């Protein structure tokens, strides 16, 4: 009953749902836009950032992409706006916009 992770949708019939809801694919959470659960939004202020990457390690949703040891802007398709990154940033490089998506 192998099934491509892309085919898991909320319209699948019981006859086609994967056996035991197994997902035979890796990293398919990327496919889901869970960023729209966000009610507060972090703003990345690049000029204040010293690239310590502390924010990256604490982000519960792996929503801070890193390329060649440099963080970039947030992955807003998955960021839930929890604000932990803003709390831990020693340099004030992340500001939370409260109530903004």
């Amino acid at each position: 009953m192998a099934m491509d992770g892309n085919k898991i949708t909320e319209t699948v019939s019981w006859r086609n749902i994967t056996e035991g809801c197994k997902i035979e694919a890796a990293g398919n959470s990327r496919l889901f836009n869970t960023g729209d659960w966000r009610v507060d939004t972090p703003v990345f202020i690049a000029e204040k950032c010293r690239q310590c990457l502390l924010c990256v390690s604490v982000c519960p949703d792996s929503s801070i992409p890193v390329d060649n040891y440099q963080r970039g802007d947030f992955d807003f398709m998955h960021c839930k706006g929890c604000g932990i990154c803003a709390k831990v940033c020693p340099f004030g490089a992340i500001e939370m916009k409260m109530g903004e998506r």
Partner: protein
Amino acid sequence: MSIKDRLSGNEAVAIAMRQINPDVMSAFPITPSTEIPQTFSSFVANGQVDTAFIPVESEHSAMSAAIGSQAAGARSLTATSSCGLALMWEVLYVAASNRLPIALALVNRTLSGPININCDHSDSMGARDSGWIQIYSENNQEAYDNFVQAYRIAEHAAVRLPIMICQDGFITSAAVENIELLADRDVQGFVGEYHPESYLLNSKQPLAIGPYAVSAYCMEAKRAQLEALKNAKQVTLDVAKEFAALSGREYGLFEEYKLADADYAMVIIGSAAGTAKDAVDQLRAAGQKVGLLKIRLFRPFPGEEIAAALQKSKVIACMDRTESFNGRCGPLGAEVKSALFDAQLMPPVINYVYGLGGRDVTVEDFITVFAQLAEIEQTNDGGKKYRYLSLRE
């Protein structure tokens, strides 16, 4: 080739396990099933199997470890009784919904309380709606034969569900009786090696097992699970046919004993069926048309087939070895009555509760039951539909 031996029901199941040579056994001891992991662990220690034996700290952990190892791709099993099964309860459902064909040797013992170590079916009957396949055994031979057939049913591609092979605590688990064993290589050939289609330790195919299913998925998942459980009925028959070719011993969904022309029929589960067969023979010798239907497969419940087998019976006794506390009937009584109703059969059905907490049940007790059935037909008075057998008033 069959090997004549004498073994307790527990020893017989442990030997079936040795012959199957599973990948993982996780277990925690509880009377009266302790002998199974005890005997099996000596096979492990002696190098007679290459199973990883995990002595866990509770039955919840035993089932959780079996779920983990089965998900990883290992053929896994465990054994328990009574409160041990109750402690597994939460994860029994996980094993079933994750579609993991784990085998569990259940040695039926009453659930506390009052605290009691002896046989009734309250443990497995309580777990009847957990999604497991349930098969019941009359004696050590059936416990062995059913365990040998277990994985073939559970692992079938159309099924892939966990299976519980039940036998009566002490009555068959501790009783030494004659038995015919199959040769090791015959069992190995019959059961075969386990090659799961998807499993967690397969580095080539990433896999998530047991994801959170929101409301949009949960009902579809359950319905698909039900279909697999229903498929287990035909698979059980197919596997039994193959097993008969190997062993000469025939099994079905249930056993009909002198039932075809019986006016008075008894539906019963487990070791007491043997005792009841002696009662049937005695009454048949006296010219009475009595018969018996012994349940083998309880989940899925073969309702249509049972109703068809009982269609000529004038009065029926359903024997429940557990109290369901609904004030009307036991679990077997409820299933049989609903199956008869759907088949538009309306004979009087008297539901008896018997043998709770190891209360002995004799040939004479069953003769009394048949006499009551005859009286109901002759007087056309059903009386109480829900009765206790051998109860002190």
